[in-house]
């Protein structure tokens, strides 16, 4: 019989529904996965079960936990939270009290659940269990990395030994390797404790790897629900099919521009950052974001740069485009030496950057057109209508219509914005385009299109790409050559084929291992 039974759950915000008559059940020890694009109502369903819906949200429908309806009254509900149902939240960075040490926060959860015996040692064991060192208990949240925080959160959720663990996208904010570790952790704990799991994600593979039953939601409605093998094996709904298709992007064969001489050469590049001391007692040496990096990109080539979070990828990108200054070393862009901001004016238009986050990269108060045309402003020589002609051309090229230019950013979806971001990067007809995780902020469903677009543009305009990513599949598609970076050092270089099949460096191996198995294949965990 079911541990949790949800019937016709509806959540509305002042009339607009976030969840619409959702019904599902989770059995004891069962692993239940929910997937769906951003904004589809995944989090709301979890919060509704926890009784933590934000103000202004009204929920209807029945929630039955062990044959008893979950109580409305806050106090009674609170008794269930933690002890019976634990939850891991989507935002590890903000979900811990910044003023309290990690250990104390976990201990609190324990005491609340009634385990008052010898909390200190229990916390230590729990920390070990989730893969933290006991020393971390004495740290404040801001002194922990994202992955570590997420582990603290999990420890917190487990402290009350709940029967049901709700994990709301516990990994989406983390880098590949950490992601995999957390997923493995959750998997292990569930098996060890025989805990039921409600796992929320928009990453098909994560769900596939963890869950036995899957529910697909879209715009607050259940699209499809059933056994993992059925849903993933032979989906009935088009939306599910689309998701699956996007999930496994197939490398498309592309005609590529001929590869020429060195366009950009990077020599012994080093970037140091002064970094705050953890405390008076733990002073930290300056952080080497880039440590003596040397490589070169040839004209027409597409070079991929992969590496775990914090390995220095963005820093390198920022220096190449001239946003940041190298502490040591130099760059050479067709025979012009520079070190970052001193990139010659003339060369500026030949190098452009596509930002990681399409939402932050447009000024909300300017029309898309104004933003996209911004790089053209300094060009005094060019004729006005010539410029406008170029705009139209480029906007068409990214597959959007010029009349959109007069609209404002908030009127566009993430995918569209990213296209405009690419348009802005290309409007000056650059030769080298640096793309910092161009798709990682986008929904799976649109990632594919953008990648295809990139490949096409590269062919049409004969561009040179430096693509930053930690998504190996993407690398397979777009890159001629792959560079693996770790802790500011380049640890390995090679063609996707060789490097991904026979990795040399430990990190590369780890990265590849971390990549979740392809959907369809039942994971051996």
């Amino acid at each position, binding site marked *: 019989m079911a541990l949790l039974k949800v019937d016709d759950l509806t959540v509305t915000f002042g009339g607009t529904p976030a969840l619409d008559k959702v019904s599902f059940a989770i059995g004891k020890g069962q692993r239940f996965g929910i997937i769906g694009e951003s904004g589809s109502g995944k989090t709301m369903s979890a919060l509704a079960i926890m009784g933590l819906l934000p103000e202004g949200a009204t929920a209807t429908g029945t929630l039955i936990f062990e044959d008893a309806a979950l109580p409305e009254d806050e106090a009674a509900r609170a008794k269930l939270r933690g002890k019976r149902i634990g939850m891991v939240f989507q935002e590890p960075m903000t979900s811990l009290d910044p003023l309290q040490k990690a250990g104390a926060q976990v201990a609190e959860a324990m005491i609340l659940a009634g385990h008052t015996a010898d909390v200190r040692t229990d916390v230590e064991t729990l920390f070990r269990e989730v893969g933290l060192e006991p020393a971390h208990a004495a740290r404040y949240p801001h002194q922990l990395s994202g992955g570590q925080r997420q582990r603290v959160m999990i420890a*917190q959720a487990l402290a009350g030994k709940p029967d049901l663990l709700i994990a709301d996208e516990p990994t989406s904010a983390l880098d590949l390797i950490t992601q995999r570790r957390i997923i493995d952790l959750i998997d292990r704990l569930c098996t060890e404790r025989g805990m039921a799991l409600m796992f929320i994600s928009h990453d098909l593979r994560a769900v596939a790897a963890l869950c036995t039953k899957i529910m697909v939601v879209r715009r607050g409605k259940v699209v499809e629900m059933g056994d993992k093998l059925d849903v993933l094996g032979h989906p009935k709904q088009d939306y599910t099919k689309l998701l699956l298709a996007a999930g496994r992007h197939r490398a498309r064969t592309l005609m590529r521009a001929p590869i020429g001489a060195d366009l950009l050469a990077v020599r012994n590049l080093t970037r140091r950052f002064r970094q705050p001391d953890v405390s008076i007692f733990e002073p930290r040496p300056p952080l080497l974001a880039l440590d003596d990096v040397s490589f070169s990109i040839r004209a027409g080539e597409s070079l991929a740069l992969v590496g775990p979070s914090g390995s220095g990828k963005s820093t390198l990108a920022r220096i190449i485009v001239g946003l940041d200054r190298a502490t040591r070393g130099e760059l050479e862009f067709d025979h012009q030496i520079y070190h970052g901001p001193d990139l010659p004016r003339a060369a500026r238009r030949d190098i452009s950057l596509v930002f990681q986050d399409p939402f932050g990269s447009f000024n909300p108060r300017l029309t898309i057109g104004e933003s996209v045309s911004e790089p053209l402003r300094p060009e005094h020589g060019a004729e006005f209508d010539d410029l406008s002609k170029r705009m139209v051309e480029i906007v068409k090229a990214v597959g959007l219509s010029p009349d959109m230019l007069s609209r404002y950013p908030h009127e566009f979806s993430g995918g569209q914005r990213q296209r405009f971001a690419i348009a802005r990067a290309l409007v000056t007809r650059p030769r080298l385009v640096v793309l910092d995780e161009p798709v990682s902020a986008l929904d799976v469903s649109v990632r594919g299109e953008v990648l295809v677009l990139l490949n096409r543009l590269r062919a049409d305009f004969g561009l040179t790409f430096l693509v930053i990513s930690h998504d190996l599949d993407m690398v397979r598609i777009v890159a001629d050559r792959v560079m693996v970076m770790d802790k500011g050092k380049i640890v390995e270089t090679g063609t996707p084929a060789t490097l991904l099949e026979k990795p040399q460096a430990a990190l590369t191996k780890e990265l590849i291992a971390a990549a979740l198995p392809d959907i369809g294949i039942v994971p051996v965990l």
Partner: protein
Amino acid sequence: MIWFTAQKLLGLIATLLVAAAIIFVALDLLPGDPARFILGINATPDSVAALQQQLGLDRPPLERFVGWIGGMFSGNFGVSYSQGVPVGELIAGRLAVTLPLTILAMILSTIVGLPLGILAARKRGSVADTGLMLLAQLGVAVPNFWFGMLLVLLFAVTLHWLPPGGFVPWYENPLGSIASLILPSLALALPQAAILARVMRTALVDVQGSDYIRAARAKGLTMSEAVWRHGVRNALLPVLTILGLQFAYLVAGTVIVENVFYLPGLGRLIFDAINARDLILVRSSIIILVLAVIATMFITDLCYAWADPRLRDRRGE
């Protein structure tokens, strides 16, 4: 933390020196002659000259500036032109009134403002909330000298509970001294309490919507438990900054309130000294005021760093 403190301290000293220079120059520009003012309109020119020479007004500015700064470090502020008494003494005497006054006002505003702010935030949208916030609006809007007059009319003139003003020296009767500070500090505290209540409310409202409160509830805390255990501490951080800033407003307020309640405070000292062109006195009094304010800001910064581990690690502004 050490680095943080050191850097803040450096800032404090720098600010003070800037202040000293600006004040000295500004005051030297002032027209009017202390000697002439002391002797009045029937004095003969030679007696005026005699007095100027006695007061050392005829020495060059730079010499006087260096003398002043040097004196300050050795705690010697020079001798007042108009009163012929060591400036240090005068200021000390006045601080014995102004300091307790501001501190009392600060305490009052805090113990009134914060709880009300918390109450309003917890009962957000309720009648209590709206009522409190309307009161707060009024509190901010009432000119404190005007409010002071009302207080006197009620508590001194009509009810005879408290003195209408004046100050009983501490050494004579401490209780009396406190009594004579109650009404003034009330007048000072009202607007500050109102502001505090509003800031506290906003801060707590923001915190209540935060992820970690939600996470704390997920651990098994009820909303109010979560707010008390995790919310209030976090909400107090912005309030702390305001507390620091408030001191400046209180100090500014004293100048007026001391007039309404004829208290022998630093504000009135400056006021009268400027009218008597007793520059040497004005200069040092103002520096003391500035010092007081900056020092409070400094202390708040430290408290802030102490209360917020994140700030401790960040190297200050």
